[in-house]
């Protein structure tokens, strides 16, 4: 082979051309199909097909009350441990360590018994970026000595670098492992409680309040935008790729901003009228028990173990 003579330390695997559809195109098509099917199944559409789905998923179901181990875990411990663990997972460099992290996240999901449906939504949101990495990286990673390249028939220019594929798969596994933890982290306590925990950990009070306020008004403005969309549709507006659509959507955005800035002033006046002085009342009491620290200990051990395992592999 011509290429092989110039780059002797690259290992080439020559497979017949008809492997291309078998190994690449069909799996890619199946994966894309499954992801879009999952996404469509998970999202309950409330608006017609050609329109954005305005529904913002609620963070907690049943006010975040449950009886699992994770639900009862002290919220401060939970935030600190899970965030530190997430950073540890994000720092992994080998596929098998990342795969172990995914298994651990799955175990946590089992324990926390959170909504399967919402976990699926999160994974579907991840799929686009991850799919892009999985397709692009095997084709664009530079060839290093010792790499294995799969060549399909005589298509020399289409060398699929296995190292690139493994790199992309490692990233996808890490992202999945962390995304799987987000539901147990966020939906096992009411949002005000989580934010209260954050403020007790030293995050400025105002930051938590801002999250709470914008989370609340997200739903209000979503509703507003949906009503405006319905009005536009009633007047016969349909989206197309042309200047008129852009102009109409720009006016829509402008109107949304005008209404929301005005509303913001009214909201703030109303808050002050009710005695708002830069604080919301605390949502409850937090008490650290021995079992909280014990769970955190298990978790830290798992994270350290993963990082150590990763480090052992060089």
């Amino acid at each position, binding site marked *: 082979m011509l290429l092989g003579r110039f780059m002797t330390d690259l290992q080439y695997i020559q497979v017949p051309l008809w492997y291309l559809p078998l190994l690449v195109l069909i799996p890619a098509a199946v994966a894309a199909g499954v992801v879009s099917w999952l996404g469509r199944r998970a999202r309950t559409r409330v608006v017609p097909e050609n329109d*954005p789905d305005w529904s913002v998923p609620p963070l907690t179901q049943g006010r975040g009350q449950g009886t699992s181990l994770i639900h009862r875990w002290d919220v401060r411990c939970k935030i600190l441990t899970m965030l530190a663990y997430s950073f540890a997972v994000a720092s992994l460099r080998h596929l098998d360590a990342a795969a172990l992290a995914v298994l651990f996240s799955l175990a946590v999901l089992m324990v926390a018994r959170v909504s399967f449906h919402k976990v699926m939504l999160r994974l579907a*949101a991840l799929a686009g970026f991850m799919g892009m990495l999985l397709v692009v990286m095997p084709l664009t990673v*530079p060839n290093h000595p010792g790499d294995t390249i799969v060549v399909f028939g005589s298509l020399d220019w289409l060398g699929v670098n296995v190292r690139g594929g493994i790199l992309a798969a490692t990233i996808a596994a*890490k*992202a999945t492992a*962390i995304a799987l933890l987000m539901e147990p982290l966020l939906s096992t306590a009411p949002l005000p409680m989580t934010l209260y925990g954050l403020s007790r950990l030293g995050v400025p009070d105002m930051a938590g309040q801002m999250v709470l306020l914008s989370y609340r008004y997200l739903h*209000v403005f979503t509703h507003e935008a949906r009503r405006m969309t319905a009005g536009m549709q009633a007047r016969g507006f349909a989206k197309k790729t042309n200047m008129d659509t*852009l102009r109409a959507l720009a006016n829509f*955005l*402008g109107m949304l901003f005008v209404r929301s800035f005005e509303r913001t002033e009214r909201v703030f006046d109303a808050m002050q009228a009710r005695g708002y002085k830069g604080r919301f009342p605390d949502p409850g009491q937090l008490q650290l028990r021995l079992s909280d620290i014990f769970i955190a200990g298990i978790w830290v051990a798992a994270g350290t173990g993963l990082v150590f395992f990763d480090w052992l592999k060089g």
Partner: protein
Amino acid sequence: MHISDGVLPLSVTLGSYAAGALVTAWSARRIHSRDLPKVAVVTSAFFVASLVHIPFGPTSAHLLLPGLAGALLGPAAFVSIGLGLLLQSILFQFGGITALGANAVMMGVPAVICGWFFQQFKGSTRLRQAIAGGLAGALGTALAAIFLAALLVTGGEDFFGVAKIALAVHVPVIVIEGVVSGFTIGFLARVKPALLQSSFQDAAGSVHD
């Protein structure tokens, strides 16, 4: 496009968190502390606006809006965008929680630059404001794409291909974003010009109570 967990090297993740925290502190100091709740409410409007999908041939793109946020909010745009990205991450999993710092820097710094640009060049006629708004919108997205590519490249040579593709897919978005921002600013200039004086700016300048 948001960066998800596990893409960037750990040092870059932590470094961009630190940089994001610094700029947030700067941005928050430029806002009257009384106005922070208002910034939060306005953030939700921008969040909803970023859910609007613009048809583009067979597919569609959603707006990133750093340019518009900068033009309307001025220095407060950084706080607002950071908050919006946190919400996108915890609600939709758009962008990972460990990459939040990187995403905030990538979208927020262009927004602040665009805000400055818009205030400098908006002039006084409506047409000129619309054109400055359109340029700010295009500039914001272009800068965000460049920041994204630069962050991806910190992962080493292996990420050059991904960075190039990320830049390429942003080109149509830059055009759409510029046109929509221009029209939106033009609309606001006709309907409510007061919004174009970057809101929440601390009148006294630096000190706040």
